[in-house]
């Protein structure tokens, strides 16, 4: 059964001097799941955006139903039956699910016929088991449900034949991921063609019929549906033969977690450096998002923090850092009660943080990189009431960590840097201070493999220096690889600590979803 819906030949995309995609050719048939694998920056997203008409094609051809596409755009793509489910959900949090669908689908008219639309939504929801309450406001929905709305948007178009998913599982919990992968097979069996962009190898192995591997913008290998393929083989093709291969930490992070030894031994838990007892933290609306919980970290240890986004990670880091008050309970550092201490004091005591959103939390418009270093980073000297900038510049530029982490040049305006560079700057600033307690919140988010490696190495180095590191991430594999102990934020509680021998995706996934009944 070969209905080729889409065909691309020698597709090419350039941004200025940079070649994002080159010489890409393949076909898309109905009823198959195509996975597009590659590391961050390999060109997957760019390729998909060309297929959906967001980016103009700079070279090569795109055929739909045998017809060459000349004036291609997202509306043409939609007309021809291509639907894209974006990774950054294009949803307005203040609107209901129904309003969001009304806003973003073409064929809903100028007037909002709520009942009709609700009926259509229910029909599709039932057919594909994508249950969402149409009248609930999106900010109250969890990420899995938000993704359902995105998928429903695409299905509202009756023409849709190809579904493109861009990193769909990056924000889902393990159980939601299972449900999602099952959903993909349902779509495939109903005759849709699925293009799946992902860097999660074990998911590819589970569902994909065909695997295209992208490296540095080119299609370097295709495992087609007649071959069998394993994770190791996929990783090998992704990285290429030049790298260290299976040895490296990144191979572990990419592939299924294979187990970790508890090098620290049980004794470490008896000497906590940072201890939280019976703490209750309230969110922005006054509700207790963490209630009567305990946890602790010892020196020379990495404590991983797992949990579905929105379970108090931000509130916890803000509390630890002194920005959000503790509603109940105590926080002690090195025996000293710091529950009521302000941020300045906690900085003095050696606490540093890499926030989950350095742009929102650390970036000062118009300030240069050097000026950012002077903010709670490097101690500076003064000339009367003025700061001695030349002296600071010299000292910072000489610093080893600054060079190792590839921090951008001092005179550059920080707001003009890329997200990754800003992250590097803030990370370096925190690390230079040789903190006693370091809180790293989603440090790998959005970074390329090389930088993620550097981040992991730096955290290991901090641990070796005797710091207590709190490591928050949404990627269970990363957490399992890096952590000495693991806690889970779920159901307004903190569960754990779990030791490495207990690290199991299934079990931890369930805790993330439902907690543990005592």
């Amino acid at each position, binding site marked *: 059964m070969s209905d080729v819906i889409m065909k691309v030949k020698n597709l090419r995309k350039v941004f200025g001097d940079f070649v994002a995609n080159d010489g890409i050719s393949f076909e898309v048939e109905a009823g198959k799941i195509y996975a597009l694998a590659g590391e961050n920056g390999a060109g997957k997203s760019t390729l998909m955006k060309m297929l959906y008409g967001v980016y103009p094609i700079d070279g090569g051809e795109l055929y739909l139903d045998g017809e060459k596409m000349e004036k291609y755009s*997202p*509306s043409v793509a939609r007309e021809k039956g291509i639907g894209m489910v*974006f990774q950054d959900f*294009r*949803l*307005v*949090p*203040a*609107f209901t699910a129904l*309003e969001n669908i*009304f*806003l*973003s689908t073409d064929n*809903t*008219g*100028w*007037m*909002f016929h709520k009942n009709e639309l609700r009926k259509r939504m229910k029909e599709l929801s039932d057919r594909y088991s994508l249950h969402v309450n149409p009248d609930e406001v999106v900010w109250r929905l969890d990420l899995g449900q938000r993704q359902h709305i995105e998928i429903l948007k695409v299905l509202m178009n009756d023409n849709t034949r190809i579904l493109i998913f861009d990193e769909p599982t990056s924000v889902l919990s393990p159980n939601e991921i299972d449900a999602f992968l099952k959903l993909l097979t349902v779509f495939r069996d109903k005759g849709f063609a699925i293009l799946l962009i992902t860097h999660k190898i074990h998911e590819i192995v589970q569902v994909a019929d065909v695997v295209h591997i992208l490296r540095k913008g080119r299609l370097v290998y295709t495992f087609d549906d007649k071959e069998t393929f394993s994770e190791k083989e996929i990783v090998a093709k992704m990285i290429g033969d030049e790298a260290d291969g299976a040895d490296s930490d990144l191979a572990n992070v990419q592939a299924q977690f294979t187990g970790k030894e508890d090098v620290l031994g049980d004794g470490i838990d008896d000497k906590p450096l940072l201890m939280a007892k019976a703490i209750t933290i309230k969110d*922005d*609306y006054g509700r207790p998002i963490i209630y009567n919980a305990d946890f602790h970290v010892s020196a020379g240890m990495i404590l991983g923090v797992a949990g579905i986004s929105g379970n108090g990670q931000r509130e916890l880091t803000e509390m630890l850092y002194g920005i959000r008050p503790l509603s109940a309970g105590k926080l002690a550092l090195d025996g000293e009660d710091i529950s009521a201490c302000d941020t300045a004091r906690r900085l003095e005591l050696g606490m540093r943080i890499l926030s989950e959103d350095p*742009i*929102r939390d650390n*970036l000062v*418009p118009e300030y240069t990189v050097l000026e950012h270093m002077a903010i709670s980073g490097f101690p500076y000297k003064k000339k009367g009431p003025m700061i001695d900038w030349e002296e600071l510049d010299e000292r910072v530029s000489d610093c080893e960590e600054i060079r190792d982490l590839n921090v951008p040049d001092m005179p550059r305006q920080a*707001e003009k840097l890329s*997200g990754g560079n*800003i992250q590097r700057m803030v990370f370096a600033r925190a690390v230079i201070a040789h903190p006693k307690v370091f809180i790293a919140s989603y440090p790998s988010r959005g970074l390329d493999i090389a930088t993620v490696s550097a981040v992991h190495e730096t955290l290991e180095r901090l641990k070796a220096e005797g710091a207590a590191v709190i490591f928050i991430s949404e990627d269970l594999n990363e957490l399992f690889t890096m952590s000495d102990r693991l806690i889970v934020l779920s159901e307004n509680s903190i569960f754990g600590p779990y030791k490495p021998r207990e690290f199991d995706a299934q079990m931890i996934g369930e805790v993330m979803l439902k907690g543990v009944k005592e």
Partner: protein
Amino acid sequence: MMDLIENFLLNTVRSGTPIMFALMGDMIGQRAGHISLSVEGAMLTGCLVGFTTCYYTDSLLLAVLFAALAGAFVGFLQIHFNIRCGADMFALALAINYFCSAITNYFGASMVSKSIRGFSRIAIPGLSRIPVIGDAVFHQDILTYCSYLLPLVVGFVLFKTKLGVALRTAGEMHQVGVAYGYNIKRLKYGAVIAAGVLAAIGGVQLACAYTMTWTSDMSGGRGFIASALVILCSWKPKRAYMAAYLFGAAQSLQILFQLLAVPIPTNIVTMAPYVVTLVALAFISMNRNPSMPEELKKIGRPLEILN
């Protein structure tokens, strides 16, 4: 006694009308993510343009038309200089108000002691005989009648049409609007110009139906009050009735107190509308504004450049 209450209610409704217009205008703008403090200047300009047109042509329709044009121009200045030239929306608004004040003071000097026929009150048969409220609600000028419908119309457009949903998207998360092909800029221009138009029409009512005179700076801060009242309404159109007539009542207190010979000095009583607005604003602000459009929360924080 009944007379007094009727009189008080009558004035409450009449003086609430300009506020209703400006309030609904700025609500549209704020829902699109832009606060137009220049509705004060737009209203003032509407006062003079409306009054002058009435004086020379006796045509109420032309008065509204020309005032609307003037208001549109004011709204255009507000949004254009902000989007195209990066001007801070508050400083810009105050400069625009200054301009409107200067222009109206200069050209209005000759209008100061003139009088016009203006908008007369039209009684709705039957309904205007209802005791107590009949006169106040159903015996008003046509612009006031229009203002009754404003919240319903604006509410319908904002919540039941694609245009309205798109406009609210501009005020909540404009990236989503852009992603689905809506022209966010055009929506914001439209919203803020609409704010200017409505505020100016409110000014026409103020000068040609309520006071029937022109004095310099006669809007007296009503535009600012209207902007503040948008917050009081939690950006919900139907609440405008409560807000506009709350102001109207505070404004009418002066007359009521005079007639009742309440021993509070006039000048203190005239503070009432401002103080009432501030107090009402206090109550609603303490409640952490869960319905504030997201884009408004970002004003003053220029960090949405990197996404």
